[in-house]
């Protein structure tokens, strides 16, 4: 243990020394160099010393005045993109960024244009990234999404296929654990997209086969349950659709809650002509989601102007979040699993560490003070960005509930109408004798298991549940 501490201390000492040397170099350039490349050189020295966030303003200042990017600068920008994400060229507008065609800038610009719904331009910019470059997998994913939105399904499927193949290769070739996980995430996203294209093309059975490629331990797995439930719903396997949406009720998937899953469950019961069961789901939706969404809205309204409230909530103890609103805890857990959030969070941590390193430098001067001030601003900006992100996630969730309340309302009216028809035809539940569930009503293929549900969820069974309810529709028709 002592040895480990000594090795760690030596390692951090070397790091500080290297950082100090680079900061000294940067200071000398800052003082003596008056050339056009001054900011570029300072940024390079800072990147060498691992002061990535401190280098951002200098890179931005250089690119603001120059359109030429040499090999060294290209490599520096790529390092910055990997270490700081989209912040590398944060201060440059789209018009300026269009002048550069290096892959790292093309990826940032393409993503920015996509988020602004300028799909045509985004596709054009992202297509500039060479097929052999490590960013091309991500570029294929975004371009595939653009084609998907345009309903060019064949092109979209091809781009998703390229993305899955490239990210698989990158994952296998990468030695960094974090990068491996990132490429795996991209690969699985692209596989899921291929399945979604199949669903959109009404090839449901083929889609279900693709979904089976996703491992149950994957980050993406809980999200595909809803997709699979829709595919089964359209295949008229309503029992499996109910089983899949029911999986979200298991304690292991407690933090994953999708109002849409509730609507789909009710729709599946409706399609089995089980009006009462469907009504129970609808009523539960209104009783459970609505009051909690209202109180969430209140929390959002009270703190909408705060730049730190939601970030503080993230750092708060689980109990505090639970007491405030049970959804907050689940929403934070779900948010934590998003890549953007994790990148921003690690950027915040890294920039704070960088500030500490700067403060440890011995010879303080005008240059180091400037770096510290810039870094403090950057930390403030990232904090605000994360705070806004959590706020946006909560807002999207409330919107989802409202959207699906409308679907549930329509379904409820439809259910009342069906029940009224039953009353007019003097039918009642007692008259229609039906079995509540049987193994005979389950359809399954060779890859699907059969488990009995004995009142508790088992991790290995999750995602394979199917109800065995008998449809009432045939009985109603025959009367």
């Amino acid at each position, binding site marked *: 243990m002592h040895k480990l501490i000594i090795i760690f201390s030596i390692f951090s000492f070397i790091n500080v020394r290297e950082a100090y040397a680079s900061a000294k170099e940067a200071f000398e350039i800052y003082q003596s160099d008056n050339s056009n490349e001054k900011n570029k050189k300072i940024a390079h020295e800072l990147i060498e010393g691992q002061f990535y966030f401190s280098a951002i303003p200098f890179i931005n200042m250089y690119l603001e005045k120059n359109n030429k990017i040499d090999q060294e600068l290209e490599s520096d920008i790529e390092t910055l993109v990997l270490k700081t*994400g*989209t912040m590398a060229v944060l201060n440059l507008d789209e018009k300026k960024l269009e002048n550069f065609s290096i892959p790292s800038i093309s990826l*940032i610009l393409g*993503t920015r244009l*996509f*988020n602004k719904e300028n799909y045509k331009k985004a596709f054009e910019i992202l297509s500039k990234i060479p097929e052999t470059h490590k960013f091309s997998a*991500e570029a294929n*994913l*975004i371009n595939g*999404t653009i084609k*998907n*939105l345009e309903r060019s399904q064949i092109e979209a499927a091809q781009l998703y296929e390229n993305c899955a193949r490239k990210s698989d290769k990158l994952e296998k070739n990468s030695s960094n654990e974090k990068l491996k996980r990132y490429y795996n995430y991209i690969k699985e*996203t692209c596989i899921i*997209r291929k399945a*979604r294209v199949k*669903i*959109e093309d009404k090839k449901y059975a083929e889609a279900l086969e693709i979904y089976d490629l996703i491992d149950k331990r994957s980050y993406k797995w809980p999200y595909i349950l809803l*997709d699979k439930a*829709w595919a089964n719903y359209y295949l008229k396997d309503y029992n499996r659709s109910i089983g899949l949406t029911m999986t979200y009720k298991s304690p292991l998937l407690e933090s994953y809650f999708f109002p*849409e899953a509730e*609507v*789909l469950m009710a*729709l599946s019961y*409706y399609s089995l002509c089980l009006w009462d069961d469907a009504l129970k789901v609808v009523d539960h939706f209104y009783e459970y989601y609505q009051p909690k969404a209202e109180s969430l809205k209140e929390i959002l309204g009270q703190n909408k102007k705060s730049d730190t409230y939601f970030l503080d909530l993230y750092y708060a103890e689980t109990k505090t979040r639970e007491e405030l609103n049970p959804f907050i805890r689940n929403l934070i857990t779900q948010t934590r699993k*998003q*890549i*953007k*959030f994790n*990148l921003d969070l690690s950027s915040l941590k890294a920039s704070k560490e960088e500030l500490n390193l700067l403060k440890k430098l011995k010879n303080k001067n005008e240059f180091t003070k400037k770096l510290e001030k810039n870094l403090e601003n950057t930390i403030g900006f990232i904090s605000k960005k994360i705070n806004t992100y959590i706020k946006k996630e909560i807002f*999207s969730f409330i919107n989802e509930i409202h959207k*699906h309340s409308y*679907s549930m309302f*329509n*379904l409820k*009216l*439809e259910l009342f*109408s069906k029940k009224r028809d039953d009353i007019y035809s003097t039918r009642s539940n007692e008259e229609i004798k039906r079995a509540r569930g049987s193994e005979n009503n389950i359809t399954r293929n060779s890859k699907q298991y059969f488990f009995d549900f004995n009142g508790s969820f088992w991790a290995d069974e999750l995602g394979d549940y199917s109800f065995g309810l008998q449809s009432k529709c045939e009985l109603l028709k025959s009367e």
Partner: protein
Amino acid sequence: MKLILCSFIMAFFSIVSAEAEDAKDMVYKYKEYEVIDLGSMEIKGQIIAPGDLTVNERSRKIFERSLLEKSNFDYENKREIENLR
């Protein structure tokens, strides 16, 4: 000529005042009781369809409410990209 005109005017006024006096004395009386024998009523016309009087059964109006459909994954796909970087 003037004499004829004067006599016409006088004759007109005397007729009008006589009518007004008649209307003052008039008493309006409404029927207090009337029996309508529906059984003896007849409808004249041609029978164009056999059988009794029939009413066509009107089919019940079916309201089709739009239930949730999943035709695409645009919302999820866009959000995934937004959450990437």
